[in-house]
């Protein structure tokens, strides 16, 4: 990890923690990958390929006690607000990091962003994020307690979302990350956990995962889930 990027990330997390926001979020996305290496301890063949995006999952049930103007909180670090077009959700951008807020999509879904009025931003609604909320772990990140999805949930989620990707590059990136994380889980005695979680998701989702694993040639994982 680039030092200046790490320092900036830590400063952002510290400010979120001081404002009471961090404990109410789950850090998701590729920033979890290096943290999983520490979680299982030891050497693991897992790449740290990632974009600058740092995604925070916020549960739809979450309420924030205090109002925090997030864009103002991070302005002196050089973050500026960017509105996505035509979706309308916002991101806080910086050459080293891009902050995004996500909430699980529910029901039939809507194209409108989810308002987070207490934080002065809004969030993007995405399918399948519930899977990342079901089981979380708390890890240390530069002395801060950060909540991230359990690696089993992370891995299966990556494989699941890859099936919906239309962009071939993003699909390849998701499958690669998902397969690597699931293999790391299996190597660390979490194979039964993968099978258990796989058994709890819908038939349609199971089919999607199997199809993606078949396409990627991950025979070892397919055998485990058979």
């Amino acid at each position, binding site marked *: 990890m680039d030092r200046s990027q790490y320092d900036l990330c830590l400063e952002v997390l510290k400010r979120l923690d001081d404002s009471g926001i961090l404990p109410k979020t789950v850090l998701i996305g590729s920033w979890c990958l290096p943290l999983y290496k520490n979680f299982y301890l030891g050497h693991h063949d897992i*790449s740290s*390929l*990632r974009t600058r995006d740092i995604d925070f999952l916020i549960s739809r049930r979450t309420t924030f006690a205090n109002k925090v103007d997030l864009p103002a909180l991070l302005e002196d670090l050089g973050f*500026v607000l*960017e509105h996505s077009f035509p979706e309308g959700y916002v991101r806080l951008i910086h050459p080293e990091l891009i902050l995004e807020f996500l909430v699980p999509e529910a029901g039939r879904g809507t194209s409108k962003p989810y308002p987070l009025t207490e934080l002065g931003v809004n969030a993007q609604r995405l399918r399948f994020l519930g899977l990342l909320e079901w089981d979380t772990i708390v890890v240390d990140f530069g002395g801060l307690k950060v909540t991230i999805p359990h690696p089993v949930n992370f891995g299966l989620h990556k494989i699941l979302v890859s099936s919906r990707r239309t962009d*071939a*590059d993003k699909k*390849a*990136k998701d499958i*690669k990350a998902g397969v690597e994380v699931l293999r790391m889980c299996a190597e660390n005695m979490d194979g039964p956990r993968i099978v258990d979680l796989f058994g709890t998701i819908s038939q349609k989702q199971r089919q999607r995962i199997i199809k993606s694993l078949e396409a990627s040639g991950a025979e070892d994982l397919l055998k485990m889930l058979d």
Partner: protein
Amino acid sequence: MVTGSGMAIKGILREELDNSIRMQKRYDEELEKLPAGSLVKKKIKGHEYYYIVLRENKKVRFAYQGKEVSESVFEEYARAKELRAKYRNLLSQVKRQIKFLKGVLRGQESI
């Protein structure tokens, strides 16, 4: 043939290039929004006067503001000065990223 890893890396680089191009546009917009010029105090024949110093058509222009300016004007220009320096610095970083990423995607630079 591009392997899964190769595709993933190319995909990330393309995504990052798009991000940087959008970022450049946003920093340009933020710089535009800041009040132009800097607030300066001049002492003329023992009296103090405030001016906004602007650069117009390669010439420096002093716009007279009066003998006193409010605290909020001071703060506005101090904040603008700080943000302008920060945004310019970040903008040049973004431009370097764009140049590098375009080069890598054309196969001219090593990753």
